[in-house]
């Protein structure tokens, strides 16, 4: 039950985009059509679900204060947590590289439609954000961390697909010229975030 609760919380209440604004850059840039939004959303979910558990293991067995104790008692006082940024980003960058190679091999159409944005997932804040939130909230087990990552990914996916759908319709409406494009997208996201605020406080 605890796992399910974490999942729901990550999807709706602490949604990566609407509550923390993580991954906004690609969220705004790729949300012009639903098709590419779905592709990017899936890619982000996939990378998050793989990289956050890996970072969890790193954190637990290498980086945390006293984490190296499993080597020998001499390392009891070692605290490498200041290295966590560099370790996490290296892990994420290499996982992204791997995903890129897999997608290029098995789904070339998706690869061409995602274009430059696949390598940019490495610098998508939501991935590193997921890893850092995992570190800050100190999840109790690998399972909880994985569920959290999956939930955050699904939340991100929902948000980008919803926005892309709205923007496709928006093309037919008469928006004031200075607000066209970026401005209205910001305001739309804000309104969607207000809608998502109604989920606040739900727990199962």
């Amino acid at each position, binding site marked *: 039950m605890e796992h399910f609760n974490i999942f729901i919380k990550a999807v709706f209440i602490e949604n990566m985009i609407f509550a*923390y*604004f993580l991954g906004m850059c690609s969220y705004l840039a790729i949300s012009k059509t639903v098709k590419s939004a779905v592709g990017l959303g899936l890619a982000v979910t996939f990378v998050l679900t793989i990289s956050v558990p890996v970072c969890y293991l790193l954190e637990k067995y290498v980086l945390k204060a006293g984490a190296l104790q499993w080597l020998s008692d001499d390392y009891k006082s070692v605290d490498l947590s200041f290295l966590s940024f560099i370790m996490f*980003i290296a892990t994420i960058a290499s996982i992204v590289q791997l995903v890129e190679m897999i997608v290029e091999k098995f789904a070339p159409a998706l690869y061409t439609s995602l274009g430059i944005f696949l390598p940019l997932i490495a*610098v998508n804040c939501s991935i590193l954000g997921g890893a*850092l939130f995992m570190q800050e909230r100190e999840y109790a087990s690998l399972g909880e961390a994985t569920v959290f990552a999956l939930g955050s990914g699904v939340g991100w996916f929902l948000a980008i697909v919803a926005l892309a759908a709205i923007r496709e319709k928006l093309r037919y409406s008469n928006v004031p010229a200075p607000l066209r494009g*970026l401005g209205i997208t910001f305001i739309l996201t804000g309104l969607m975030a207000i809608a998502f605020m109604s989920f606040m406080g739900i727990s199962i």
Partner: protein
Amino acid sequence: MSKETIAVPAKPKKEKEPLFSPKNKRLLFDPLNDNNPITVQVLGICSALAVTVKMKPSIVMALAVMVVCAFSNVIISFIRNIIPNRIRIIVQLTVVAAMVIIVDQFLKAFVFDVSKQLSVFVGLIITNCIIMGRLEAFAMSNKPWPSFLDGMGNGFGYGLILVIVSMIRELFGSGELMGFRVIPESIYKMGYFNNSLVIMPPMALIIVGILIWIQRSRNKKLIESK
């Protein structure tokens, strides 16, 4: 993603150029308005919105981004000719991550309470698209000094929006500026309330949207075509 308008051609000959030539000045001041990283290039929004509830953390954040952006630009610009093209993203990330670790340790040592408020967002400077974008678009093909100015300018443009948004949110959300009360007690007695919606995350997006609206209606050439 980034709409490049500053394209500085490689200089043909070795001629002495003054430190603040018009071209360099443009590098420094263009990002404030015409080429603002947040409202025009749409970079680095992720962290910009989350830290703007109060002015103090957002000023600290702006300074941190400025420092990281300028110095990682310089470092990458120094080693740009020896970076193998295939692994350049990882090299850039490593340089930026090292800079961010320094800044993070510095913040923890000297302004611990602000560092606690910023929580994960200091770490997220690593993936701040402004920094990666400038490294990729500018530092990889320019000399150290212009790169430094470019980094400073972009950090400054980012900071400007951050300060404006946080000023609006702090003033209307809690009636304070920099932690000092500016709206006097008597107005509250007359029935004025703090607008608690402004503190909520969604309003940050709407405020930035409105800022973009204002900027584009004043600066017609930024309007997007349909």
